[in-house]
């Protein structure tokens, strides 16, 4: 009798555990700024409204998303939902939400513009939505420019003009002049402004062109003469990502080239320590473009609970939730209705942050056609990785820039060949 009771108890416990697993939705999430806290709050609200679904929010470092998630996905594992930036590259792993969401038309209308960024070429899959649209751009330490008596270059200033002005500030204030994140995506913006075009006629990567070579040569020269900080670029090997935000936050940089996702981070960490402004992207001979991009919340096709996953995605993709998320995180929204209706009331008392966001919204108008295509191009990450690796080696004094050009082309060709095997 006693044995029967024990077995019955164990079976009940097992059943309740299984029942809990059946409604679980695990989200792998990374944060650049305050969005982790906002997301946690929203997840709590979702679970109150949907008591049958248990959402587990795993806050992880960005490197986990970049390096570990792809491996998990290749092995057919991973979370149910993830916030990612390599959206196109991993698109074969995303779940098609079209038959699962409540209103596919709503998704098409509001997220259709970026849908191609996150689905395999040629499909009409709904994989998820952009939690934020980003644009690369610069930030200047206004206080340091003023202290140095150097006027801030105007809105159409070129990279050369910014480099010269920042160098003057750096020499006067004993700081670093400029820095750009160690990222192929970031470096691509000035390359495009110099006329680069990565995409060949066959849709595959083209060899580096004059525009790309021109800026890379200038960039290496600027690092050599101290106009650009080399610390971030030589602080790792391979294609490892490194941000230079801390140097800017610590008042060690006159000009920092990163992107709109840094606004909340800078506003929170700089506070009243100094005045800073968003500058948009400096100009080159061909354009004054930044690189669009962003992070997407995507459903993973290896989930055991696709219905619950779709319910979560539907809830978070609602216009009112996206609006609230954007206002609280200071991110540019990816929902068309939210953008069209406008009236976003960014929740910050920081006037500099508000001005920076306005500047980024303005800057989207000067984004080049090529830049708009790259987030949905399959080979973007391959090109970015090759550029970062070889430019990093050049800056560390391991090869000449001409050799780096040859290596970048060879690396990309090899990767294309590997992918075809």
């Amino acid at each position: 009798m006693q044995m029967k009771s024990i077995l019955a108890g164990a079976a009940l416990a097992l059943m309740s555990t299984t029942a809990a697993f059946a409604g679980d939705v695990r989200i792998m999430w990374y944060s650049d700024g305050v969005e982790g806290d906002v997301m946690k709050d929203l997840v709590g609200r979702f679970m109150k409204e949907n008591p049958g679904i248990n959402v587990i929010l795993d806050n992880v470092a960005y490197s986990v998303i970049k390096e570990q998630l792809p491996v998990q996905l290749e092995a057919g594992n991973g979370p149910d939902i993830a916030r990612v930036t390599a959206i196109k590259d991993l698109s074969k792993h995303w779940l098609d939400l079209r038959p699962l969401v409540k209103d596919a038309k709503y998704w098409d209308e509001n997220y259709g513009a970026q849908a191609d960024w996150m689905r395999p070429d040629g499909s009409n899959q709904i994989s998820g939505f952009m939690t934020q649209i980003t644009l690369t751009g610069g930030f200047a330490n206004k206080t340091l420019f003023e202290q140095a008596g150097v006027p801030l270059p105007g809105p159409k200033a070129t990279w050369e003009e910014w480099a010269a002005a920042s160098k003057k500030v750096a020499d006067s204030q004993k700081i670093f002049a400029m820095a750009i994140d160690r990222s192929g995506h970031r470096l691509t913006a000035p390359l495009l402004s110099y006329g680069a075009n990565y995409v060949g006629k066959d849709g595959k990567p083209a060899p580096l062109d004059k525009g790309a070579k021109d800026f890379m040569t200038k960039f290496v020269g600027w690092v050599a003469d101290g106009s650009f900080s080399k610390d971030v670029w030589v602080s790792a090997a391979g294609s490892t990502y490194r941000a230079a935000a801390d140097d800017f936050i610590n008042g060690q940089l006159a000009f920092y080239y990163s992107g709109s996702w840094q606004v909340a981070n800078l506003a929170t960490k700089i506070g009243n320590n100094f005045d800073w402004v968003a500058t948009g992207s400096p100009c080159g001979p061909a354009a004054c473009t930044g690189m669009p991009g962003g992070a997407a919340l995507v459903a993973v096709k290896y989930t055991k609970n696709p219905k619950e996953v779709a319910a979560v995605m539907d809830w978070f993709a609602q216009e009112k939730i996206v609006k609230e998320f954007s206002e609280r995180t200071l991110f540019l929204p990816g929902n068309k209705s939210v953008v069209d209706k406008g009236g976003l009331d960014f929740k910050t008392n920081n006037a500099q942050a508000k001005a920076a966001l306005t500047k980024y919204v303005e800057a989207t108008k000067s984004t080049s056609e090529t830049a708009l295509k790259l987030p949905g191009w399959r080979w973007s990450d391959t090109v970015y990785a090759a550029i970062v690796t070889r430019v990093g080696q050049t800056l560390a004094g391991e090869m000449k820039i001409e050799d780096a050009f040859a290596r970048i082309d060879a690396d990309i060709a090899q990767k294309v060949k590997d992918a075809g095997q």
Partner: protein
Amino acid sequence: MTSTTTSSHLGALLMAPVNALMRVVDIPLRGLQKSTGIGGMAAFFLAPNMLIFGIFVLLPLFINIVYSTTGGTAFFLSERSFVGTEQYQRLFTCTNYLDPMSCQEDAFWTAVGNTFWFVVLQVALMILVSLVTALILNRDLIGRSFWRAVFFFPVLLSPVVVGLIWKWILQRQGLLNFILYEIGNVTPYTWLTDRNWTFIATIGVSIWAHMGLYTLILLAGLQAIPKDLYEAAEMDGTKPARVFWRITLPLLAPNLLVVVVLALIKAVQIFDEVYVLTGGGPGTSTLYLTQYIYETGFASALRNPGLAAAASILMGLVLVVLTLMQLGLGRKNENKGKR
């Protein structure tokens, strides 16, 4: 007396089910021994261990070899194409092996070169520092146990923690620059972006992190040397240097050999603390073989598990050679001892 009897009764009671089980098991085992002999019984008892070894060591090794003969970026073997020795050929396509830039996989040969120099310098310095520390700790110091613990403490730290601690010390706005500035008004230096300093830093940090273990092994060896040998040398008026070369070092040789081989194997595998400390930079100046394999297999934008597997097989061969060397030298020492 009564309590002894009670406890022996209790023991017998507790052992009763075990004994019963033994008697049950004994029957098939006797049968097995009759049919297979003593050798068969040894194999039978070793089987569980060999099974675990097979699943967790031999099977992954076999799978790794298979991977190294396939191409593509997929992880599932069924989705990968057979390419034969192409990955190995790619690794060995080189005009001049001493100039990595002349090789198709320049990062691999850079990593091989870096690892070679790291192993040579780190192991030599590790032995020297560990030996000197062991000799000092073997003396009658005040608070000897405390000092032993101090030197052993870093061994207990996770390699990631070691990397982070030293990163905070060596970075531009780190502790070292702060101290140098406070003491001598020295301009902050970027230790971790200077190729030479970074290489030296990786050697120094790995010695700091691992020397405690080797010091302990050598200390055990020093304490096993009979004291009367030193007393006799002292009575003969032998100079300390001669005592060291003629008594300490020869008698410490077996321990030194263990330390050398362990340090060699550990140095070839260097990864975690360096990855956290320098990320392999500046450029590729501290890119070592394990990091190359990790990045090629898992971290790069378009992974190549086949190439990473081929590189890891080659690295495995080096480790096999080092292990055989250890076994060979160990046996040689044993035979010497017997003579």
